[in-house]
């Protein structure tokens, strides 16, 4: 029993130090920083390298923490600062970019082998009566207490801390009062990086080094952060102890194989009762204008390209669709099975991305839960088909219905959340589903998974099974494209956009906000489930490690890369996220690096997504509401309304008073 309590307090110590960095950056900019784990692991690898070469432990640790701080500051300066035009959830997904680069580089240099880092104080123990506590456990607890105290003093008692709090409540006002907001931000990222490094070195006394080990640990500690609340340092400490106790006793008394599920359930229950954590409160902000940079400095491709008339655009669009559909249909006769497999993967990815697009594109709620719905669809199908011998079609339909129901059920806590809390609960969901699916080993094959054979008979004799599967997936994907286009441009799509832009405003004109969001979650679940079924169909095998946080992140990246709220965007984004790893697969270790860099490049160069590139050929958008008595703006001139008429519209959009 006392050993469990020691384990609980040690876990709490890790949660605190991991959480501090996350909380600091969140408080400063509202961003959930996914690069925290990879940046932290740099410290452990640096320490490992130096200790291998004969440096004393403490020198290695200090050097490692310095490296983490510097890299984190560099990420802020080189990346985060340049994405100020994007919304918070996009900046959050952008932090996956440097994270992937670091993981890729570490994997390329050190391999994915588990390397040991020595414990700081050796393996001795201190005895308190009957209870023996290891030196490294005591060390972890001491470090956590010092870290909490240090951050508290920094925030509450120093000029930097006050500048930081001012800059997070109102950056524009803080700047106007003489605070160098950029430098404050860089400082916070450096401190968060150092804390991540400290956490990595603490954790690595207990675990082997592996490029993603701190990241996994960080995701698993979200419950500790959420319990206390993201805004309060004291709350983080209490939440960490509570969740340390809860998870240690759960592992001791129930099972250690469902900790991610416990993480998710804790977050779901905690946030249902306390939407800002037990000790958190809503962060308050200064009522200040959001000053966006003047557009005159930006390179605008659209100014240099001749505009096409709406009729030509329509013809081109129809021609594009016709060529695309025909191309998809005849593809099996042109390319080999290996390439066909890639196209089928893109199509399955597109189906899932279209579903995510309802929540994250149209309704504007950044979700990292899509891989969870894919896993639900895939597992339900696999179990019904293989264990209960349902016919494929029936198993598929049941799988989709269950995934949709899971979407609605999951939506009930999730619709009250937004921003960082939604990101955390959806991410925990993605981690929990495969773990839960692997739990009944004799049904699902556990962590090894199981084979799923598909029974497509001789529809077109003479073609490979893959070609037939491909056609099925292509037809489904085309249908999904049509359905999501109709939904997105129809009444439901307008409601989603209204809720995205202002829940209060939407409610005031009679949009049922909760139901509208639940619709998005349900449809998102259904499309995710469908994608899961299709994937199983092609792959012929199901295993829990196919449904990772990275898959969720890639899907979210896909709709942002392609263009949020655009069906074509989901398609282009899906091609991007499937094709990039495929193209670079000859240099497999570097493919993560390449993907991370290209994600950042797209966000930086094409803030509206790849699909927005095609819009440069279109004239100005015809206004939906015209002033009475004015001639309709046809757009045939390609310039739309004159500058004077456009002025009030643009001013209203920037939301700035004069």
């Amino acid at each position, binding site marked *: 029993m006392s050993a469990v309590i020691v384990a609980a307090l040690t876990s709490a110590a890790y949660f605190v130090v991991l959480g501090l960095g996350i909380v600091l950056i969140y408080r400063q900019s509202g961003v959930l920083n996914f690069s925290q784990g990879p940046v932290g692991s740099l410290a452990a690898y640096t320490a490992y390298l130096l200790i291998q070469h004969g440096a004393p432990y403490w020198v290695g640790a200090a050097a490692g923490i310095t490296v983490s701080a510097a890299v984190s500051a560099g990420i802020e300066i080189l990346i985060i600062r340049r994405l100020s035009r994007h919304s918070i959830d996009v900046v959050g997904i952008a932090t996956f970019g440097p994270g992937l680069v670091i993981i890729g580089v570490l994997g390329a240099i050190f391999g994915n082998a588990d390397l040991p880092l020595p414990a700081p104080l050796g393996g001795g123990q201190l005895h308190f009566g009957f209870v023996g506590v290891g030196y490294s456990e005591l060390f972890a607890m001491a470090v956590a207490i010092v870290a909490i105290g240090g951050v508290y003093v920094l925030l509450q008692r120093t000029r930097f801390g006050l500048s930081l709090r001012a800059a997070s409540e109102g950056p524009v006002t803080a700047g106007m*009062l003489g605070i160098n*907001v950029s430098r404050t931000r860089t400082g916070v990222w450096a401190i968060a990086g150092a804390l991540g490094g400290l956490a990595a070195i603490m954790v690595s006394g207990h675990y082997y080094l592996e490029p993603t080990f701190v990241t996994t640990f960080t995701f698993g500690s979200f419950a500790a952060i959420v319990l206390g609340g993201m805004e309060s340092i004291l709350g983080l400490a209490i939440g960490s102890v509570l969740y340390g106790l809860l998870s240690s006793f759960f592992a001791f008394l129930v099972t250690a194989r469902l900790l991610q599920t416990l993480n998710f359930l804790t977050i779901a229950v905690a946030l249902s009762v306390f939407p800002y954590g037990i000790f958190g409160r809503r962060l*308050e902000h200064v009522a200040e204008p959001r000053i966006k940079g*003047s557009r005159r400095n930006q390179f605008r491709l659209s100014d240099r390209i001749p505009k096409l008339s709406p009729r030509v655009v329509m013809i081109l669009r129809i021609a594009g669709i016709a060529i695309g559909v025909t191309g998809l249909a005849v593809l099996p006769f042109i390319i080999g099975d290996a390439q066909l497999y890639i196209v089928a993967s893109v199509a399955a990815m597109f189906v899932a991305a279209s579903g995510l697009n309802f929540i994250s594109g149209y309704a504007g709620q950044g979700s990292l839960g899509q891989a969870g719905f894919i896993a639900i669809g895939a597992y339900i199908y696999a179990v019904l088909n293989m264990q209960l011998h349902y016919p494929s079609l029936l198993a598929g339909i049941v799988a989709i219905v269950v995934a949709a129901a899971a979407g609605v059920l999951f939506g009930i806590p999730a619709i009250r959340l937004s921003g960082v809390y939604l990101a955390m609960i959806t991410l925990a969901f993605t981690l929990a589903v495969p773990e839960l699916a692997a739990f009944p080993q004799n049904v699902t094959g556990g962590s090894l998974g199981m084979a799923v054979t598909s029974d497509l008979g001789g529809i077109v004799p003479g073609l490979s099974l893959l070609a037939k599967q491909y056609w099925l997936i292509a037809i489904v994907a085309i249908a999904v494209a049509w359905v999501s286009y109709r939904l997105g441009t129809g009444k439901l799509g307008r409601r989603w956009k209204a809720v995205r832009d202002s829940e209060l405003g939407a409610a005031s004109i009679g949009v049922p906000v909760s139901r509208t969001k639940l619709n998005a979650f349900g449809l998102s679940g259904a499309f995710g489930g469908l994608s899961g079924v299709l994937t199983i169909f092609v792959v012929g095998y199901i295993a829990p490690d196919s449904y990772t946080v990275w898959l969720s992140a890639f899907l979210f990246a896909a709709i942002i890369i392609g263009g949020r709220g655009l069906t074509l965007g989901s398609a282009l984004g899906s091609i991007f996220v499937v094709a990039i790893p495929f193209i670079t697969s000859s240099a497999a270790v570097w493919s993560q690096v390449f993907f991370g860099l290209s994600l950042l490049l797209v966000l930086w160069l094409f803030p509206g997504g790849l699909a927005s590139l095609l819009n440069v050929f279109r004239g100005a958008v015809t206004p939906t509401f015209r002033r009475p008595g004015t001639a309709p703006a046809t757009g045939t001139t390609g310039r739309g309304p004159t500058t004077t008429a456009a002025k009030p519209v643009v*001013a209203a959009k920037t939301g700035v008073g*004069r």
Partner: protein
Amino acid sequence: MTGTPLLELRDVYAGYGEASVLEGVNFTVPVGTCVVLLGPNGVGKSTILRTVSGIIKPSGGTVSYRGNDLRRIPDYKIARMGLAHVPEGRGIFPGVTVLENLRIGGFASGARTAEQSETLDRVYTLFPILKERADQPAAALSGGQQQMLAIGRGLMSQPQLLILDEPSLGLSPLLVDQVFDALRAIKEQGTTVLLVEQSARHALALADHVYVIGEGKVTRDGTPAEVRDTLDAEYLS
């Protein structure tokens, strides 16, 4: 107009995104005076002040303050040059205490916290309520108290030029009188004031020189007496 100009705008153009708001603004603020910008909603008064304090950068023309061209100087450095901006809507940091808000105001002066007790006492003399509520979160203050805090925070940097954006906005008539009494005291202590106001009656009583703004330009200017005769009745309400 006499005296050396502390602030001078020449042919300033500025805007947000693609929207152009200021289209050639010219005016001067001499040392030790109170200059008032009058005009209806939406003509660019706040934009002028934001251009001065560097939150937005002009796309044309020059803004010179104490002989420095402000166009290439970031906002936080402008604040450190002795220019305090009390923004529209007060810009109070709601989650930190009243005293901390004042301390933040003092950052721009470069003085250490211990050296600021005299300035703090001056602000407390001007607005005694802030001393009473020093340790409460600023969000707990009423609108009028928040306005006083905003002005007090501006004074904490001991500015040479205090610019205020509609300090009477949303206040009851009694509180407006109080705020303007405080502004008069600030002016009499030698601080140069640039004021944007819609309450023309109060503003004209304080002003040495008035510029009337219309559609992104100065349409006319003069002493309060000169301007008062030509103003529409609606400004004087």
